[in-house]
């Protein structure tokens, strides 16, 4: 395996591209840094001047209002200047390549790129291009690439789990749903295994489990009832609507029957188990409303923590 491209010479975090290969201390440092940021939202002036004068470009080649907004809020609470670019339809259709776009924005003195792209590895490509062009002072934060990684989502999931459950080494965590296409699942799996979580399970039909996923340190369950037994944390994944019918799954209804989270299935987990979801939810497809809005759901706190975690990532990366 080649050197982890997101770490600098002294092991400092220069880019955040994936949680794979990040040392546990780096992850813990991000989570620790996020903690005091949570309270900034309670101030009269909801911002601190850490990134004043820095230009953060939200470079979204795949539209996602929610993720873009949380990054925007995080950057603005750090007093950065935020420029939003939804490139999905504009430049690439005019023949401009991804790296052309990056070079152009560098010429506008970007300090940081927050990148969302439908192709796995696009943020890595940008990071290595910046190095080649002698612009390694420009930072890249992956906001989701293809099926590969969504590291800030993984970190906010870890933050949420640590907030409610403290010690990863005592936990059983189940990730339920479309693992095959899920960058959220991949990032969370790497994060959980790095933090020495006792057991990480994935629960899905065989059509939605990627090859040799066990090599990532997880145990695969096809039967949700079996997989939920004695879990401390249940993470539900979003099922994209285009995958609800076709060769992967016959129908949303049948999916819900087997893999939808209901109070009855949740009863198999530990009594104090928490329920998470990266959002946006498909109520009645992967999760029933009673659970989503129930006492064990920590889905809304996840959103709050998400901003603090992204503030932590932006401020750590920008300083290195």
């Amino acid at each position: 395996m080649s050197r982890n491209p997101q770490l600098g010479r002294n092991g400092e975090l220069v880019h955040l591209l994936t949680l794979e290969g990040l040392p546990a201390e780096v992850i813990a440092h991000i989570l620790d840094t996020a903690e005091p940021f949570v309270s900034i939202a309670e101030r009269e002036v909801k911002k601190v001047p850490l990134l004043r004068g820095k230009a953060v470009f939200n470079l979204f080649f795949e539209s996602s209002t929610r993720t873009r907004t949380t990054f925007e809020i995080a950057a603005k609470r750090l007093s950065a200047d935020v420029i939003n670019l939804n490139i999905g339809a504009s430049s690439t259709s005019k023949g401009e390549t991804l790296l052309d776009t990056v070079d152009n924005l560098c010429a506008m003195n970007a300090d940081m790129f927050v990148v969302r792209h439908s192709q796995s590895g696009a943020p890595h490509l940008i990071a290595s291009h910046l190095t080649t062009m002698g612009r390694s002072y420009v930072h890249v934060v992956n906001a989701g690439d293809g099926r590969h990684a969504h590291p800030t989502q993984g970190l906010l999931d870890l933050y949420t789990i640590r907030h409610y459950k403290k010690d990863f080494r005592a936990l059983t965590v189940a990730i339920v749903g479309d693992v095959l296409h899920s960058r959220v699942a991949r990032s969370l799996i790497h994060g959980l295994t790095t933090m020495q979580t006792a057991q990480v399970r994935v629960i899905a039909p065989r059509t939605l489990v990627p090859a040799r996923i066990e090599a990532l340190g997880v145990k695969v369950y096809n039967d949700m009832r079996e997989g939920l037994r004695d879990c401390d944390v249940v993470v539900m994944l979003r099922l994209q609507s285009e995958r609800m019918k076709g060769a992967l799954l016959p129908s949303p209804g049948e999916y819900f029957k087997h893999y939808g989270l209901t109070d009855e299935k949740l009863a198999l987990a530990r009594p104090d188990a928490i329920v998470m979801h990266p959002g946006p939810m498909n109520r009645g497809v992967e999760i029933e409303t009673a659970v989503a809005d129930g006492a064990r759901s920590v889905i809304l706190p996840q959103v709050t923590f998400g901003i603090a975690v992204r503030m932590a990532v932006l401020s750590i990366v920008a300083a290195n």
Partner: protein
Amino acid sequence: MKIEIAQGRVVDSAAGIDRVAPLYIDAGRIVGIGDAPENWRADRILDARGCVVCPGLVDLSARLREPGLEHKATLESELAAAVAGGVTSLACPPDTDPPLDEPGLVEMLKHRARTLNQAHVYPVGALTAGLRGEALTEMSELAEAGCVAFSQADIPLVDTQVLLRAMQYAGTFGHRVWLRPQDAHLARGGVAHDGEVATRLGLPSIPVSAETIALATILALVRESGVPVHLCRLSSAAGVAIVRAAKEEGLPITCDVAVHHLHLADTDIGWFDPLANLTPPLRSTRDRAALRAGAADGTIDVICSDHAPVDDDGKQVPFGEAETGATGLELLLPLTLKWAAEDRVPLPEALERITRAPASVIGIGEATLAAGNPADICVFDPQQAWTVGRQSLKSQGKNTPFLGLEVIGAVRWTLVGGEVVHERNGKD
């Protein structure tokens, strides 16, 4: 022009020769090994001390990008690359733009190649019109124009009825059929081997069954029709096992592997290196071991370069959007030598995989140094190391996963038809 290649180690498996001896060339042909012809007086003597003298390399798959894709490469650049790599004959697949499905295109290509007077170019014609897998091409016309075989290049023929008929029709007239086994549906959208690496990196994947199913289909049709087929670019251990069994069964098949598959595996994708995006995909290290063993025991007859010059625009994009392929003509010899050295395959046998065996698949005679044959010869220094780099490659396509690697084995002279068409100093 009389040329004497002096004091080289002459290695020619066809003629059963492996000894240090002078080789004499006159009027484009080899006129003797060891004993000089009467009244011999060389116009030029090539001092081949320490070098290996072998038949010119024959490559089963080298994309020259003409017609239609000249921004990626031209005949001039790629034929210069061929002779720099010791390749004196090459077959080019029909996936040009437009595809080689009309005699006029083939004649033009042959004509262009002849005027350049470098390596011999043997076009492979399209098996179906436009490579669309629907209607047969005029194979006899194409063969007259110069096509040595017919294939679908990397585009699978989905309709098995058309495939069977294409084989039957080609077989009727003795045309060669080359097929790359890949199931179109299982490979759909995939860019990497279906294994741990693709799962980690979140890359859409292609299972091994895409190859084995297609192999089983082709072999069933070979059994049914009796038409011989050459199988292109094996990538998996399971594929090698199927071919081994089919050969034991006596089916009339041969097969090849791309030389990069003998050295790389999916782990070489690293963090999304687009240079490692190849067709078929790099598979597991276990598959690579089986391919190497298959090449050593002869289950795999031929090692080819699968040369595909891709420009930077095609590679400086995210992995899944990258054009597949790598430049390879200049790496065929050193990478074959590397495999042979690592797996202790005797030199004559290794050279056989890139000379005599591919010549026989194309059907262009023996590729031997026996007296009377055309003097298509490669003289290389088996000790000299060089580094694969953008400057050192003559091909217009500079992209290969081996960039930066030091390889051993440098071509000193290449002769085509008795003329020195490539020459390189002993020391860089």
